[in-house]
């Protein structure tokens, strides 16, 4: 056993879709309160890795532990772990037939079996946290992308998760809407939430991440603090990838 206490341990996760090897053995340990950003070209398994963590995608091999309890092969108990692992998707996936507040409270009612009054209070509290309390009675179709994403963050937070997974949360948003979502995420970082973020927002990654993982070909090719990775990446591909970003941002 490791000396240090990890909230999440990922051990040698492999996943193939047909002949396409998406993850070729990924291991990483996450400490409580850490923010880890995953960067890298598209199609390198970043999103698949996140989905393996809460078993929306079942890995072919490897193990995942949350607080030293095995999440892989959990059987029906996976629904317990999924409550502890909040997830935010690129396309929000808000429930189209429910208003914002109903979106946030539905899992409190049906999964946590809270009473309606408590659930409503909790849902309103979470909406307030993301600045969406005034939009509680609006349907997803009536919200902008940024607003919808903030509601989806509130929905995940309402379950009181121990870690949060963000799967390209701003990739479907324009720069202005991106900013409002990143503000909410920064607040979470400050509040000490443990977060795993797949993102192309280098600025965000550099300013809040404890660790940046560069992924390619289904593996974490290089990892380190933002300064380490940005200033002297030894790995050529990573240097090129980040170099392109710096070129455009100067």
């Amino acid at each position, binding site marked *: 056993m490791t000396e240090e206490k990890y909230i999440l341990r990922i051990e040698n996760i492999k996943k193939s879709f047909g002949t396409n090897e998406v993850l070729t053995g990924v291991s990483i340990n996450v400490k409580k309160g850490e923010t880890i950003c995953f960067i890298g070209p598209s199609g390198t398994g970043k999103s698949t890795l996140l989905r393996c963590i809460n078993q*929306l995608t079942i890995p072919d091999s490897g193990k995942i532990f949350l607080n030293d309890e095995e999440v892989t092969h959990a059987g029906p108990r996976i*629904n317990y772990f*999924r409550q502890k692992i909040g997830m935010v*998707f690129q396309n929000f*996936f808000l*429930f*189209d*037939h429910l208003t914002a507040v109903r979106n946030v409270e539905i899992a409190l009612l049906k999964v946590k079996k809270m009473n309606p009054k408590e659930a409503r209070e909790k849902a309103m509290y979470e909406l307030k946290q993301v600045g969406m309390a005034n939009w509680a009675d609006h349907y997803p179709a009536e919200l902008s992308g940024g607003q919808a994403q903030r509601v989806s963050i509130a929905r995940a937070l309402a*379950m009181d998760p121990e870690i949060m997974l963000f799967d390209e949360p701003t990739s479907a948003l324009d720069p202005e809407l991106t900013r409002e979502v990143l503000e909410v995420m920064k607040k979470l970082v400050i509040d000490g939430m443990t977060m795993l973020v797949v993102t192309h927002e280098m600025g965000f990654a550099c300013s809040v991440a404890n660790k940046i993982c560069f992924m390619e070909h289904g593996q974490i090719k290089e990892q380190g603090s933002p300064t380490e990775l940005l200033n002297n990446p030894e790995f050529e591909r990573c240097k090129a990838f980040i170099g392109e970003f710096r070129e455009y941002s100067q």
Partner: protein
Amino acid sequence: MDQITFIFDVMLPAFSNGLLMTLSLIAISAPIGFILGVTIACGRVYGGKGLSWVMKLYTIFFRGCPLLLLLFILYFGLPSVGIVFTPFVASVLGFILCNSAYNSEYVRGSIISVKEGQLIAAKALGMTKNQAIINIVLPQALRRSIPGISNEFIYLIKYSSLAYMITLVELTGASKLIATKYFAYNETFFAVALVYLALVTVTTFGANALEKKYAVPG
């Protein structure tokens, strides 16, 4: 006999008895046909290979068999193997089998049209598959099924007249009996057509109201 006496002393009592029978047929067949239709649709979409196939065969068979033939089998055929139904029970059974098979296809189409992400997001929140289907997928799918299901309901109103072919005197049967007895074909059949039209119109407005009530922006 003058027209007034015919309408009030002959037609009205016959029609009201017939209408009552037609409405009882519908009142029992429609809800069961609906629930069964939803169940079959869920079985086909979410069931394992075996269940999915059984449901598919059910749909193929009962959509493929003419309803009149189905009623004949239930009422005239089955007694020879020792299964005897009253005309009413045989009619209701036939309507349920037919109605549910059609409804299942409307609902299945709507379920498929609900985006995959809805189910994924529900699972990510810790819902079981059943919870996700009941709370997230079906409420959306059923909204989209309202036009199809009300369409099928309107068919049911009209094909309930087939019960007359297995001796059940419902609305059409009642009108046929007095029409032949009094040689008043045109008046009687035209009047009964108006009654069906009224039933269908009420259904249409009901379905529209339902659609409006559960409408969701977007």
